[in-house]
């Protein structure tokens, strides 16, 4: 419990987001292109951090589904930036041992001849420490 509080603080620090600014309008989730794939929805991320329920967030598949497309950040009427929270939780996970979501071993089977370099670079950045 105590460490969750600490983690919540860390998330706020990394993301620079103040979840208390949220008025719970749900526009982030309304706008999210990955909504269907997410178990915990963008607007819930804000509430979870507010309630310091980080454990569940770290296990959420949503971390790996968020595109960081900033649609939620751009359209949020309260300037809460839910996308940055999701990214901060993702970092929290990746900074732990074995937190990587992508291992070099799985790469060969994911490749195809057209893949642009930047896809690999980005994926590595996003999925691994």
């Amino acid at each position: 419990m105590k460490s969750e509080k600490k983690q919540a603080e860390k998330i706020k620090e990394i993301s620079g987001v103040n979840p208390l600014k949220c008025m719970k309008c749900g526009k982030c989730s309304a706008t999210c292109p990955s909504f269907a794939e997410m178990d915990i929805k963008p607007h819930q991320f804000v509430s979870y951090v507010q309630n310091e329920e980080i454990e569940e967030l770290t296990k959420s598949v949503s971390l790996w589904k968020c595109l960081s497309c900033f649609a939620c950040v751009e359209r949020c009427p309260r300037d809460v930036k839910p996308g940055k929270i999701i990214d901060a939780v993702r970092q929290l996970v990746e900074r732990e041992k074995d937190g990587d979501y992508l291992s070099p071993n799985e790469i060969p089977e994911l490749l195809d001849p057209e893949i642009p370099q930047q896809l690999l670079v980005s994926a590595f950045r996003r999925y691994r420490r």
Partner: protein
Amino acid sequence: MKYSYYPGCTLKNKAQALDMYARASASVLGFELEEVSEWQCCGGVYPLGSDEIATKLSSVRVLNEAKKKDQALVTLCSACHHVIKRVNDDMKNVPDIYQKANRYLQLEEDYRGETNVYHFLEVLRDQIGFDKLKEKVVKPLTGKKIGAYYGCLLLRPSSILAFDNPENPKILEDFIRAIGAEPVIYPYRNECCGGYISLKEKDMSKNMCEKITQSAEGFGADMLITACPLCMYNLNKTESKKIPVYYFTELLAEALGLKED
């Protein structure tokens, strides 16, 4: 007019067309892209965490190179533009980041966001002018109905990218008009293609691109243009793919009569 130019990894490889046509067009339009020496990869995605410094340094180096030459920095790939523009903003406005970054880099003079970062399209719009561009067009793409695909990286967050109206952009539409074609406005042009997620979640990005291409086709587009190699890759992966996707520079070169048939 000379600009420092940052091509980025993909333009040296899978997206050579994007790069090649841009350089060729630039010389016709009266400006030069001078490639920054020994540039490093931008990392593909902007490091969002406020405590991530090292991952931003490659961008700072490039920016500082341009500063030393007293040139603006031009980018072409949407992802590179996004990353470099945001890092530049950090170096200008976020004390924690610029202090740490400068401490790491030990430059002769601290870098504080002095370089202006322009996307190639911004150069066309703000420095050359679409009217001027129109005058240089020798082979207008008359009759072509083109859907502009912006994606997310160029537009958002608008407070930093300051590229265009993030919800109703018009720079590519104006570009399309300038090269003599007709722009097709469709609602998904500023929605994400799925980006880097297509490596592991191929279906997700496929679904997203499906929506994009169908919407464009529904509104009557014959083709799509983009500035991003990743968008290009993802859009080309759709199941029902009928609509061709081009880099905007290719059509620009074509209109300027630089493309050999």
